[in-house]
């Protein structure tokens, strides 16, 4: 049915839905007590209709955003017929609609004319979610109970009255009680604010026009996505990517296998051949697998980059992920690391599959995630702290036409993860930063070079700090690959040096305890390169050497450019003759 609603109204409503989400997001960003929300922006906010279909959402961090429709459906189904004005609901269980346990969903129904019309959702990665984990990650978990506290769809407020008993129960099971309590209030604030704005919008347009407009917006988005997909050549494209290990079985590297099928205006992500589920916490849930598939496809140049992320956008996609595999684990497997390890492997498989047919529209692989989550008491202010060391983010992959972006990893965030301010970090956590700068030779060589990784080091100023070092990408076969002839970037290197001078390499997906005087240093992978490095002009290679991004050795080995340092003028120059020789060889 074609609605009579004026196109200007549709545009205004569409943008207003987005701005309501943004305003809710501002609440999360501006009022949170956990740096994971307020600095790194690891949260999302969304508006659903009563069905509930996703109408609009913020995409600060793409991976957690794309999973919200599952949570909304779970809550709406669980409480069908029993939802009242002023209610609030809460959920974190990965087998009941969530993607992974540290992300807590808070939902509020919005009523108009005494009818349930909309749902508002705020979701974020909390500083702690109980269980055996650190900041929500437990590499030693064998099951969902060790992983985290499990919160099914629960009523958090009943007709406007907060259920203190429910909140007490949750907070009693959480170490970082103050941080989590503050941030649950911040999520409640976000949905409250969203409700005020949505009611004002209903006041202005009435429900009939508003719902006609949102239906049209969803259909329009679907049409655009289908038109874009239709331009990708039909076919089946397969790729597989592994991760280091699952934290329990150290000699086994779980593999994601994808057959990506483009059929006209439809894309099927078939993960049927992936490994069976793992013992450890890297297992993916269906919401997470869907989220990763969507973000990997939508980030490519094949899909218009200004489409809106609503239910219309995902209608042309189909996910095949058999239960019991690493991409759709059976309850009660642990899942807390699925948004990183397996998520990255899925994104890489999708990009590598598409690189077989549209290499100029995808990216070389990005630096994966591997860094410590830590928590404990900060003796400087006698307060509990919990933080993730986002400052070690790796580089972005190169694309056709451009070098990769520096320090924007991991691919699951597509550059939306903001590195915390070093000063605020030192103010809140018991760490002194020692180094935080670009590391030479971390970008994969190519005609277009991968973005740079960093060297990040800090000294611990407290005892008994719990650390979950989580992530992957420390093996040669899990380092960021290049495409179209570009080289891979080197794997991450992590090191722990104790106050007594002894030192050890840190592995991913393991627990450690940090003590006063310990020094942790991380060199993160850059991104993979795009195209043959010998096609990069010697002048650009020289410039990279001059800027300290590429060493004289890498210039020769990877790029076949011979650079010499002229000490008399302390400048680098190209040895034209030797370079010609090397390049023609």
């Amino acid at each position, binding site marked *: 049915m074609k609605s009579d609603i004026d196109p200007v109204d549709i545009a205004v409503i569409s943008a207003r839905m987005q701005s309501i989400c943004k305003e809710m997001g501002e*609440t999360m960003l501006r009022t949170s007590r956990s740096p994971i929300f307020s600095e790194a922006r690891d949260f999302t906010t969304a508006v659903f209709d009563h069905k509930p279909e996703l109408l609009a959402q913020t995409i600060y961090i793409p991976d957690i955003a794309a999973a919200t429709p599952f949570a909304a459906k779970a809550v709406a189904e669980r409480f069908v017929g029993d939802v009242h004005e002023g209610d609030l609901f809460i959920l974190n269980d990965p087998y009941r609609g969530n993607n992974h346990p540290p992300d807590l969903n808070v939902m509020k129904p919005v009523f108009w004319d005494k009818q349930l019309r909309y749902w508002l959702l705020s979701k974020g990665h909390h500083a702690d979610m109980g269980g055996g984990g650190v900041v929500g990650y437990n590499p030693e978990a064998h099951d969902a109970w060790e992983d985290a506290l499990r919160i099914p769809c629960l009523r958090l407020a009943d007709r406007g009255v907060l259920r203190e008993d429910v909140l007490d129960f949750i907070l009693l099971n959480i170490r970082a009680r103050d941080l989590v309590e503050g941030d649950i209030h911040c999520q409640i604030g976000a949905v409250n604010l969203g409700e005020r704005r949505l009611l004002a919008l209903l006041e202005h347009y009435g429900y009939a026009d508003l719902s006609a407009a949102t239906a049209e917006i969803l259909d329009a988005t679907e049409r655009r996505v289908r038109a874009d997909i239709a331009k990708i050549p039909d076919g089946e494209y397969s790729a597989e990517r592994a991760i280091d290990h699952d934290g329990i079985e150290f000699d086994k590297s779980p593999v994601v296998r994808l057959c990506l099928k483009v059929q006209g205006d439809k894309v099927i992500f078939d993960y049927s051949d992936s490994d069976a589920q793992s013992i450890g916490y890297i297992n993916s849930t269906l919401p997470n697998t869907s989220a990763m598939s969507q973000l990997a496809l939508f*980030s490519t140049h094949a899909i218009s980059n200004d489409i809106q992320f609503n239910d219309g956008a995902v209608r042309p996609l189909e996910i095949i992920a058999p239960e019991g595999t690493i991409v759709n684990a059976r309850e009660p497997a642990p899942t807390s690391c699925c948004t990183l390890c397996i998520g990255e492997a899925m994104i890489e498989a999708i990009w590598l599959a598409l690189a077989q047919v549209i290499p100029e529209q995808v990216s070389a692989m990005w630096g994966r995630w591997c860094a410590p989550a830590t928590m404990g008491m900060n003796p400087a202010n006698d*307060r509990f702290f919990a933080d993730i060391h986002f400052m070690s983010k790796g580089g972005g992959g190169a694309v056709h036409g451009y*070098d990769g972006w520096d*320090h924007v990893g991991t691919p699951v965030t597509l550059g939306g993860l903001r590195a915390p301010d070093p000063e605020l970090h030192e103010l809140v956590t018991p760490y002194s930063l020692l180094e935080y*700068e670009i590391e030479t030779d971390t970008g994969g060589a190519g005609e277009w070079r991968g973005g740079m990784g960093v060297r990040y080091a800090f000294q611990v100023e407290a005892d008994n700090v719990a650390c979950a070092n989580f992530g992957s990408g420390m093996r040669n076969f899990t380092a960021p690959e290049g495409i179209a002839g570009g080289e891979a970037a080197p794997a991450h290197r992590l090191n722990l040096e104790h106050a007594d001078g002894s030192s050890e390499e840190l592995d991913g997906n393991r627990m450690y305890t940090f003590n006063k005087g310990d020094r942790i240093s991380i060199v993160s992978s850059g991104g993979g390169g795009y195209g043959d490095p010998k096609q990069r002009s010697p002048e650009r290679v020289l410039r990279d050497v001059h800027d300290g991004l590429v060493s004289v050795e890498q210039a020769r080995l990877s790029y076949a450019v011979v650079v010499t340092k002229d000490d008399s003028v302390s400048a680098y120059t190209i040895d034209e003759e030797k370079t010609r020789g090397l390049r023609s060889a």
Partner: protein
Amino acid sequence: MSFKIGIDVGGTFTDLLVFDDAGNTSICKAPTTPADPSQGVFAALQQAASERNLPTRGFLEQVESIVHGTTITTNAVLTASGARTAFITTHGFRDLLNLRRGMKDGERYDLQLAPPPQLIERSLNLTVRERVNARGEQTIPLHEEDVASAAAVMQSANIEAIAISYLWSFLNPEHELRTRELLEKEFPNVYISLSCEVLPQIRVYERHSTTALNSYCGPPLASYLQELEQSLQQNGFSGTLNIMQSNGGCMSPKVTSRFSVNTLLSGPAGGPGAGIHYGKTHDYKNIITVDMGGTSFDVALVQNETPVVSSENEVGGFHVAVPMLDIHTVGAGGGSIAGVDSGGMLYVGPASAGADPGPACYDRGGSEPTVTDADLILGYLDADYFHGGAMTLNREAASRAIEKKVAIPLGLSITEAADGIYRVANSIMSGAVTVVTVQRGLDPREFAMIVAGGAGPIHAVPIARELGIRTLLVPRESSVFCAAGMLLSDLKHTYVRTCAMLGSLVDFKLIGKRLQEMRDLALSTFADENLTSEDVTMQYSADLRYVGQFNEVEVTGFNLGDSNEQVWQQLIDDFHGLHDERFGYALPQGEVELINLRLVASGKTGKPQASRFALKDEDAVHAIKGRREAWFDNSMQLVDVYDGLALQSGNLLLGPAIVEQPTTTIVLPTATELRCDEWGNYLIEILRKKEE
């Protein structure tokens, strides 16, 4: 007679607005001279002088004050032509400036996005061993030999400016101060800025970026201002010269030269102030100001008579954390070049023919068709009355350019092609208005549009119509709108001091000391600007948050000497209220902490008074100066052309029609009416068309 002058150097024209002490205004325009903008300024001043039959010197001797908006720094950033700058920071933290917190700004879902340009290349990001901790204590002394090594690199790189920004320097500025001391000797003519002076505030990347921009823009701005001041003085000027700042206030050239980063929006910053001024005459509290110049279209929003100010700004993709008016700019103006792309799509801009060679019809060698050429072909502009006849436009040249580059490729007539250019330009501009309204969830229909720029009123009605806006106000000084806003601005200085303490342990003495410090700084700056304390108002504010939060809410409403418990309690109560209003919740039992103290110090300047006229009757026939063919309702029609200068307050006319003043043309389509109000400004109402 004495005069006050506002001067706005735009991308294409240098606008000048003169107020005399009887309240009369006059307008002059001269082409902007990008290589040395002061030439354009003097050309406009000469025009103003000769209109009064005075030599330039005789005129300047009677000028009491000049407020000047400049695009020197904006252009330096946008065209990457600032000073060759070195950045000095703490050893081990070399790349925080260029890493930009690892954020991929812009379209996150576009892998094919070019990485951002760097203001300062990595080889000129230099480090020095030194360190101050989170308590402001030195943990590594300043290694002066590292400063010497940095100096050697800078010498061989021929740098023109230095920015110094160390970790935690806002708590302990000793190392920055000493570094400057060491470098000043070796680089006596190099512009140096310190983060502890430019933005003494926590968050290192934002501080770095603001300080780096300050140095990058400093040398071109300082030399421009110095030359301008000298030439003005040599030509008899002995009044006050003030420079427009991005926050909507102004400052002396001396202070401005040190803090160049505050002028990144100097040009358009007069807009919102002018908007508020004109809006008041009709009691408009919510206003969209649009300013169409030769190269750009600026949109600003005023809500409840308050311009939107932000501390999270970007200019040319670089972050600026000093408070600036929130002004959105797109590359669409009279000089914007039109063409047809490889896909057969008509486009307009963002490339511009600028002032030189300018549009094809300027006949200065420009062969690309521009929006101005289209306006001429459509009959909206009169070839013989451009700038009041000061310049004759070549219709033939405009026609040729449009024919060759647009009409033939698209298979259209020249007039149809011109109409296409006109409509595409309008949709780009209405899109810009959408960005600041609709995309922020604001309904443009709830705003009045105030139209500025010589070409603005030619395009404003279709833009407004597309957005559903029904009321437009075109000030008589529309073509020099920002210059008017500049004359209406106050001197303004903003200060911030980080002063972190728990609500339960407030040290009123320390708060008092910090407030006093800022107040003293403001007063001594005002003294430099020859302002006495009775003309000064101080607005203090405090950034508060719940303990453990990472962001603050700014709470105002106290004064120096008020640091007692009652006032503090009031601030806390206000904080809870504001927190609930903005974020949907408050925690009345939660402990509150203070982070920053702020001061906005304003100094009153002598402002011109506008004249108000008695309303005459509605009949406007007396002002008709002729008829000409122009494009309305998809055909060329013969319509009345009114002389704007002859229109009197109270006169009413209906579209289709054209109203002309020497530097402004108003195009009034069918189903609109224009009324000349009692201030001599034009109020346009878009009437509902029959089908609506």
